[in-house]
């Protein structure tokens, strides 16, 4: 049809040449318009042909035959070649180009409680710059640089000043991915104790609630676990069919144990002893129940406080979580055992939490109950005592990147007045 139209337009042009002089300017204008439209038709036809599903490999006009792909070295093996495969600029180490990708997380809070001396305050939470870089096909860098306000709270002791921000390198890891069964990370990472610690890291936006369960609080926020480690971590799948077994094996510096404890719990640069901490975790993600993960971990270290006997530390943790887009149920329990050498008494600190939530559109109400019970004579964290209580809240996802959470916490503490707290949090990613 288009051909007919074009032929007829040429006839029109031919006939137009014999028009009277009075119409000539108009005819000339129309002929120009026809020429323009013809050119446009030609362009559209060409574009239509380009869109046809003819194979167009990046490096040749004609598709390469499968036999040519089988030749050694003929195909892209690395990330840089993959980029070339799409015809875009190759991604390789180039001083004129950064390979960094940065994702940000942050939160701003309004918090109030009934504790004596506390005031209702707006609080800047953590500003987390999550940095990744695909160094090569097998190596990747991953880091979390966190800016947060002080003071720190380490085993009940405060350090630093109010309202002063500091910078922490919370994660700094070089990952090597050999295959599905063997991956190695070196650097500072989150210890694979239980589930929560390695699932949410330093982003409140990912978390349903406004904060971590007390058991998994960070070391500088009153936490009792060696949440961070500096060392080597290996992980991967275990051939187990539909059971979906995974392992994590870690060797690291462990937590600092020289007095005073409250200086810096994470041994980033120097280990205060030659002994290393070990952690082994095993968990299953069965195919039959998608979203279910259940597992346990064993952490072992020896602490050496000044002027007191060495303390063997064993942390046994178990978890069962079920997470689907609209529903989550997290359950974790653990025992922290501290066994001073030469003493028959072992200090055991049990703890658990359960958290359940259900999404209704943009709203997600949730409930958490947590418990931890530590002896008043506990040699490492004597300030904890027994604390337990529920938290109830609602999360509203205002957009895909912004969440507003309102949470009420009631915490009873042994020999202290119970704490009622209300928090409003704006968590976001950018």
């Amino acid at each position, binding site marked *: 049809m288009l051909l007919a*139209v074009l032929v007829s337009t040429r006839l029109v042009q031919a006939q137009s040449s014999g*028009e009277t002089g009075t119409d000539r300017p108009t005819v000339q204008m129309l002929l120009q318009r026809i020429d323009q*439209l013809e050119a446009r038709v030609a362009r559209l036809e060409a574009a239509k042909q380009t*869109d046809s599903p003819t194979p167009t490999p990046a490096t040749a006009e004609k598709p*390469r035959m499968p036999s040519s792909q089988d030749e050694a070295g003929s*195909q892209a093996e690395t*990330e840089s070649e*993959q980029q070339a495969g799409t015809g875009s600029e190759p991604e390789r180490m180039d001083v004129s180009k950064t390979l960094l990708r940065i994702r940000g997380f942050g939160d701003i809070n309004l918090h109030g409680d009934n504790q004596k001396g506390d005031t209702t305050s707006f609080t800047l939470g953590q500003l987390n710059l999550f940095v990744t870089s695909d160094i090569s096909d097998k190596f990747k860098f991953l880091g979390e640089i966190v800016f947060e306000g002080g003071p720190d709270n380490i085993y009940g002791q405060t350090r630093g000043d109010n309202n002063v921000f500091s910078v922490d390198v919370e994660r700094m890891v070089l990952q090597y991915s050999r295959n599905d069964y063997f991956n190695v990370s070196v650097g500072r990472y989150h210890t694979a104790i239980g589930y929560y610690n390695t699932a949410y890291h330093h982003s409140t936006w990912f978390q349903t609630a406004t904060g971590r369960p007390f058991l998994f609080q960070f070391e500088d926020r009153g936490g009792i676990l060696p949440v961070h480690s500096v060392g080597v971590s290996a992980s991967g799948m275990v051939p187990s069919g539909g059971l979906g077994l995974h392992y994590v094996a870690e060797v690291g510096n462990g937590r600092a144990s020289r007095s005073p404890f409250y200086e810096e719990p994470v041994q980033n640069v120097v280990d205060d002893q030659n002994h290393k901490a070990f952690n082994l975790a095993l968990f299953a993600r069965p195919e039959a129940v998608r979203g279910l993960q259940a597992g346990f971990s064993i952490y072992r270290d020896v602490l050496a406080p000044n002027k007191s006997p060495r303390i063997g530390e064993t942390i046994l943790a178990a978890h069962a979580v079920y997470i689907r887009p609209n529903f989550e149920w997290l359950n974790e329990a653990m025992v922290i055992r501290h066994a001073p050498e030469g003493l028959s008494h072992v200090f055991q600190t049990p703890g658990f939490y359960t958290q359940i939530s259900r999404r209704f559109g943009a709203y997600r109400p949730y409930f958490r109950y947590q418990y931890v019970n530590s002896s008043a004579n506990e040699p490492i964290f004597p300030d904890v005592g027994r604390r337990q209580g529920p938290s109830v809240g609602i999360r509203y996802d205002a957009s895909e990147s912004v969440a507003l959470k309102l949470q009420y916490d009631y915490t009873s503490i042994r020999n202290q007045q119970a704490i009622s707290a209300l928090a409003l949090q704006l968590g976001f990613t950018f």
Partner: protein
Amino acid sequence: MQRCLGRLVIIGMAVSGLLGVCNHSARAGGAPPNEQDSPEGNLAIVVNTSNPVDTLSLPELRKVFLGERSHWPNGRRITLVMMEPGQPERRALIREVCQMNESDFSRHFLHGVFTGEVFVSPKTLASPVGVRKFVFNVPGAIGYVRASEVDSSVKVIRVDGRLPADKEYGLRIGPPAAH
């Protein structure tokens, strides 16, 4: 003069019609409307022709497209190729294979990269031609295109033992979601 105007109108209609065809092709990814219900409108999972994998079960495919498996049995790293958000093929894959919506899928990958469990994010390409080109050139790549877009530059793998032309094939693109 009148004839000239008449021809002009005809050309105008032709141009309009051609523009309409092109726009429709762009919206529908080049597929005529009646392809939605035909085998050619099914979603074909494509890999590089050198990939030894010929068939995957739906749960295995889900693990691949959720980044839970990072390597093929021959040791090559899996590189996921996704089409841009809003494309019907992408919607179909996320719905039928990942059993999620776009928002949950994005969040899943962001979380996976954040925890370190997902080594590399999916590559996002704009067109079926781009997907085929990428899969053709990258031995570990896996992507998807409308079955009618498949050519000999890529290999279609069976899902639960079935190819897109089979009657019981489970991955249908379906009608575009209403906006």
